[in-house]
């Protein structure tokens, strides 16, 4: 790894979007045979930079060299042609096609007739060679997330990619799968490939990377420095410009009445598979229960079942009222608030104004709603109040919701949900994709509500976040929830094992106690 031949060299890259300079004269290079981590918080510009390298965006200014030759990348095809392959955070796989079909997509060979058995064999041998085991004839929707990621990598390797760009690859993996991935990457770099590893997770960077580049607000704050010897603190400071390790003052609150009581809840996913399996869960007022787990183990379906968006068997009681399989409106009236994972797709109406978004739960009752009609002036006054109170940064209450940044949109959603004075809040991945300031705000709000007596179900992939905020933590794996233990007693290693199903509870079957 002492080779200093550059595989990729980007100089003076500038990329502008309406209202923001995503990349501001950025220099970045990758050496042959190294793992180079690209760090930065959300919105720092690292994804944009890599999208330029992958041929998806065109840079406004700057040059790119691959193996010392200047290249112009107008499309992903151009990028792949020079050996640059990107594995995106959100997989670009066609669910209804098979693994092999996905790998063959976009290639010139086979010329015309699809001779699948021949190519399945080719894929199989490539998979064996690189240690990425997967069934070439399986349809994508049948695979687990980790397997799908392997298909994405195979896709690139099949095309002869020597420089692999991985965008937040561990976001969807359990600790053990992360280990496997890192091993695979080390094997590849030993064989001469180079890897760019985009992440905002500081421990992973210190584990896997040879060099680190840090970006903040479109600019490089640390260029290609050796990763060895860097502490999390150093890196965090480079990322945000200040000491960021959040310290939270968590007040002691003694839990009150049981607010949410789930017994024996099972549900089926959209694909017809069982996604929740005899779930028992109890949350008391003034309590935050953190549910840890890798995405795709039933978290969304759990939230949907509680909020009335999905059918289930079993019992779900909120303050004694049975809500399982009842319409959503009943759950809302019973005081259930829902901060969904998908802010733009579910949590807001993009083309409607802030006002319209804020009254989504309140329009049916006084003081905004009177019988059938809506008092427009009251609605607007309320919206203005909430906008100011929750510091939603936008030109006015008439601004369309789609123009808000992620952090502001989440503030909007929280404003709406909290102002409905719920007894139970279901928050799913509430800080995903937010910048540090917004993350702090969200955490602060959740803790405030907890002190005010609200019960909170915090579903998050971020174990650190859970350990920081929650009173008790449980793990969800393949639709089953472990028993919850006080956060003080939780041990990260053991939680990690539970998240991958390597260890089940000591007791026979999930019996949580609150």
């Amino acid at each position: 790894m002492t080779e200093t031949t550059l595989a990729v060299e980007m100089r003076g890259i500038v990329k502008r979007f309406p209202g923001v300079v995503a990349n501001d004269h950025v220099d970045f290079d990758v050496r042959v045979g190294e793992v180079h981590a690209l760090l930065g918080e959300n919105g720092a510009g690292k994804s944009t930079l890599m999208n330029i390298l992958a041929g998806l965006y065109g840079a406004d200014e700057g040059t790119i060299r691959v193996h010392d030759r200047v290249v112009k990348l107008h499309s992903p095809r151009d990028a792949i042609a020079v050996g640059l392959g990107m594995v995106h955070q959100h997989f670009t796989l066609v669910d209804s096609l098979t693994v092999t079909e996905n790998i063959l997509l976009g290639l010139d060979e086979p010329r015309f007739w699809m001779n699948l058995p021949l190519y399945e064999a080719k894929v199989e041998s490539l998979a064996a060679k690189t240690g990425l085991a997967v069934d070439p004839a399986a349809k994508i929707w049948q695979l687990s997330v980790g397997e799908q990621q392997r298909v994405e990598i195979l896709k690139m390797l099949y095309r002869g990619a020597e420089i692999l760009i991985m965008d937040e690859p561990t976001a969807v993996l359990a600790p053990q799968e992360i280990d496997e991935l890192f091993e695979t990457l080390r094997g590849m770099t030993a064989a001469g490939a180079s890897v760019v590893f985009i992440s905002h997770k500081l421990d992973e960077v210190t584990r896997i990377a040879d060099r680190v580049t840090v970006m903040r607000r479109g600019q490089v704050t640390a260029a290609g420095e050796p990763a060895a010897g860097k502490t999390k603190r150093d890196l965090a400071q480079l990322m945000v410009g200040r000491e960021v390790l959040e310290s939270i003052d968590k007040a002691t609150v003694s839990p009150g009445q049981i607010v949410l009581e789930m017994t024996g809840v099972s549900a089926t996913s959209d694909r017809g598979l069982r996604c929740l399996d005899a779930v028992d869960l109890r949350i008391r007022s003034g309590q935050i229960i953190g549910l840890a787990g890798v995405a795709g183990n039933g978290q969304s379906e759990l939230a949907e079942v509680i909020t009335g968006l999905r059918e289930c068997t079993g019992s779900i009681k909120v303050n004694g009222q049975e809500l399982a399989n009842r319409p959503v409106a009943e759950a809302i009236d019973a005081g259930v608030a829902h901060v969904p994972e998908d802010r733009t797709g579910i949590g807001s109406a993009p083309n409607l104004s802030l006002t319209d978004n804020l009254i989504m739960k309140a329009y049916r009752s006084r003081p905004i709603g009177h019988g059938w009609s809506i008092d427009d002036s009251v609605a607007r006054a309320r919206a203005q109040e909430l906008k100011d109170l929750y510091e939603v940064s936008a030109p006015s209450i008439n601004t369309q919701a789609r123009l808000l940044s992620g952090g502001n949109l989440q503030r909007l959603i929280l404003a709406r949900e909290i102002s409905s004075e719920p007894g139970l809040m279901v928050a799913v991945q509430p800080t995903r994709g937010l910048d540090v300031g917004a993350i702090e705000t969200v955490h602060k709000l959740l803790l405030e509500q907890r002190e005010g007596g609200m019960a909170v179900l915090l579903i998050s992939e971020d174990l650190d976040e859970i350990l920081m905020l929650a009173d008790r933590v449980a793990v969800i794996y393949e639709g089953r929830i472990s028993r919850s233990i006080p956060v003080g007693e939780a041990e990260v290693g053991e939680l990690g094992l539970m998240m991958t199903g390597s260890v089940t509870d000591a007791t026979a079957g999930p019996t949580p106690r609150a």
Partner: protein
Amino acid sequence: MNLELALAAGISSGTVLLFAAIGELFAERAGVINLGVQGMMFVGALVGFSVGYNIDPWLGVVLAMVAGALLAALHGLVTIHLQANQIVSGLALTFLGTGVALVLGEGLPSGSSPLLPVVTLPLLADIPFVGAVFFSEQSILVYAGYLLVPLTSIWIFRTRPGLHLRAVGEQPSAADALGVNVYRQRYAYVMLGGALAGLAGAYMTMSQVPGWHADQTFIAQGWIAVALVIFGQWKPGRTMFGAYMTAFIFRLSLDLQGPKELFGIPNIFYEYGPSTFVLGMLPYITVILVLVFAASEANRKRIGAPASLGTPYVRGERGH
């Protein structure tokens, strides 16, 4: 009522629906809904007949397909590049195509002999019943229709371009990331759909009911073709079945009006003139029932439209 003749007539008029529906199937497989089929058929009918009558029939067929494709290109421009709503654009094109065809078609003769050859296949026509229905005295384009269906099936499911087509329709971002030109694919298939719709129209005025009948020629064919694609679950074979079956029912509703007696009892449709209108409702009710059936089947089997149908594709949207 001669069953063989009725069925053969069903095949003949079903071919109009078949061409239009297969065209729409291609477009929808690529993710674009084209409700302008009706307008493209009308334009194709006009161009096919006027060129075919005055110059040369085969040139008419070709130009009809070109006209349909051009109109579809407009649809493509507006929906793919300008990202307008696909449903509305299609509607606009129907108005447009119909209107333009009516304007430009002023003065064309309203009756003519078939402009395209009518063919009977030698050996196949002798097969009892089947031969009389499928292979006797049918326009040459009907036979083209028979070939079109398996060719379409093979293209979509067994070739590399077909793989790309399916990918573009299901998840354009995935196809794009791998270098498949989503815009070009969608344009191509939308235009192909338009060309086939134009062919359907040309077939109608040149072969099936030769002549330019401005108002009643097309009544609902284009829309029914769109419904047939849904019924066919975006598969060529099933769509073909739907096309022939629907045409047959139309034919049936006409045939039932004729005879004095039906199965021994006096034919009410013959006796009481206005009751034929009730019969006239039958085909349209059938289409609705067919759609209900297809929808509940799709619900049960969890199959459905190409996932990106109706959504414009924009590369690299910045999301939250």
